[in-house]
């Protein structure tokens, strides 16, 4: 991201981010709308590729719907690739990207990222229960479920970034983690709603607890980290605001939004964003495994903790997915089988609540900076709240609301058909997650970031994250979620 974003001017960068938000919203809604057609009997997404756990790779892939079985796994993979290529190429052309370069790079990105996903579904990596191991005739497994493919994709990206920089540079036109994750989050609204409709009490309880996440991120984390950056490390206000926002709120989007609000030089929040991505990678590699080891008996505490500790949307939500797979695997090995979706839903709810207020916080900071610090003729305008609001969140809320209404307020026939439709949409959510993780890995060139003078910035991040954010997040998660478990699978 740093290489791409550093070269653009502030108005263009801001416009691109806003357009990216809208683009993510449009693509996410398109996937959701097409998936919903299956409720009426027109299955137009059933050709999308789905990967199962395997020992013989030729059996790994298949279309999601049996009606498209004639396509075969390879055909479904090609159809999925072609559809994504066309839609995303049209999409990025609206952002001013070079479509030809994007198409070539995306082809490679998709191949490596989805290849990682397939590798992650290998039985020795993914099989969880003894019954599954017996089914596949294997004596051991890493028990990561097939979502271990996220980690494989991330590692593949890291290898490219740090050992094959030429390839990383060649791929950069299609390395768009923010776009991919925003699309995934819009689609995720359907999965969350279908999951929530089954347990309304728990869902409403999760929503209530989102308020604690907002308070923690904006009022406590931000204030402490801003103080640490200014007082202990001597950073200027221009650096401290994006840094505090990136570490405490939601990474890249918050750093850019608040950096814009205080009129920081465009490169400042962008460089901070690179740091955020690097730390998000480190967190994703560590925290889910810590959660599995120490919090597997408190799955919702683990989900909330991941949402509070990992500071980019993509890494947090995918980290929640990895945590869910790891904890469900450990619980299954102990004979406890939770309904899937609740740990991820907890992470996502916490993160979404935090995201929603970025615009408000950017306005608050913009107001203070224009009226008290950089006094000038400009006054912060209320419309800035709207301008800074992450638009893709509207898509998530819309998809969630429509899905919830279909699940609870429509006919029994529609409610019955909805989970299958949500599953078809979820295939694309998973693919966008994989693309996100691979992209984050490719952006994380540790040597280059260090050469740019990141040591002191990283020190602020390290001190804040490991000295404060993680532990306070754990405490808050424990206070609000301990003792409550996801429903058991029937």
């Amino acid at each position, binding site marked *: 991201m740093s290489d791409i974003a*550093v*070269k*653009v*001017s*502030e108005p263009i960068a801001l416009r691109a981010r806003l357009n990216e938000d809208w683009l993510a919203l449009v693509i996410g809604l398109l996937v959701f709308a097409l998936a919903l057609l299956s409720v009426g009997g027109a299955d137009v997404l059933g050709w999308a590729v789905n990967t199962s756990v395997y020992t013989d790779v030729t059996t790994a892939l298949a279309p999601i719907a049996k009606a498209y079985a004639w396509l075969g796994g390879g055909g479904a993979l090609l159809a999925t690739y072609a559809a994504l290529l066309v839609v995303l190429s049209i999409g990025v052309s609206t952002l001013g990207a070079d479509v030809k370069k994007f198409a070539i790079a995306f082809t490679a990105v998709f191949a490596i990222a989805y290849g990682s996903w397939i590798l992650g579904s290998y039985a020795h990596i993914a099989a969880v229960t003894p019954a599954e191991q017996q089914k596949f005739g294997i004596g051991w497994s890493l028990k990561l479920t097939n979502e271990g493919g996220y980690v494989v994709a991330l590692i593949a990206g890291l290898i490219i970034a740090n050992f094959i920089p030429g390839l990383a540079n060649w791929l950069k036109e299609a390395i768009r983690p923010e776009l991919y994750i925003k699309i995934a989050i819009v689609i995720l609204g359907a999965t969350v709603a279908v999951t929530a409709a089954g*347990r309304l*009490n*728990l869902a409403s*309880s*999760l929503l*209530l*607890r989102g*308020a*604690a996440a907002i*308070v*923690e991120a*904006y*009022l*406590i984390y*931000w*204030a*402490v980290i*801003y*103080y640490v950056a*200014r*007082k202990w490390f*001597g*950073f*200027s*206000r221009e*650096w401290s605001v994006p840094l505090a926002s990136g570490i405490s709120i939601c990474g890249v989007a918050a750093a850019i939004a608040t950096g814009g609000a205080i009129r920081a*030089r*465009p*490169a*400042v929040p962008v*460089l901070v964003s690179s740091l955020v991505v690097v730390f998000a990678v480190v967190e994703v590699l560590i925290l889910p495994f810590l959660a599995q080891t120490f919090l597997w008996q408190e799955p*919702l505490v683990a989900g909330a903790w991941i949402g509070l500790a990992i500071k980019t949307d993509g890494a947090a939500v995918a980290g929640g997915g990895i945590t869910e797979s790891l904890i469900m695997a450990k619980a299954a090995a102990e004979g406890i089988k939770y309904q899937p979706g609740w740990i991820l839903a907890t992470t996502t709810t916490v993160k979404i609540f935090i995201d929603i207020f970025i615009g408000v916080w950017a306005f608050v900071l913009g107001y*203070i900076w224009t009226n*008290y*610090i950089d006094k000038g003729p400009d006054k912060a305008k209320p419309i800035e709240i709207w301008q800074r609001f992450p638009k893709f969140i509207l898509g998530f809320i819309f998809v969630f609301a429509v899905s919830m209404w279909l699940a609870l307020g429509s006919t029994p026939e529609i409610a019955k058909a909805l989970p299958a439709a949500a599953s078809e949409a979820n295939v694309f959510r998973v693919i966008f997650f994989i693309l996100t993780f691979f992209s984050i890995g490719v952006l994380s060139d540790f040597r280059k970031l260090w050469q*740019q*003078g*990141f040591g*002191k*910035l990283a020190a602020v991040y390290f001190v804040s994250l490991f000295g404060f954010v993680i532990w306070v997040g754990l405490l*808050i998660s424990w*206070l*609000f*979620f301990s003792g*409550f*478990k996801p*429903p058991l699978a029937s």
Partner: protein
Amino acid sequence: MSQPDLRSELNAPVEPLLPIEKRLIGWSLGIGIVLLVILVALNHFVPIKL
């Protein structure tokens, strides 16, 4: 867009905390802690329902 020279900027004189920054930090923390206490209490009376 000019690339900031982070190394030289880190050696620049430290900008002192302005009163408005201190107020922002203080009020944020104060309101945050009070709200968290209220929410923890609410959490006690409105537990998660399965």
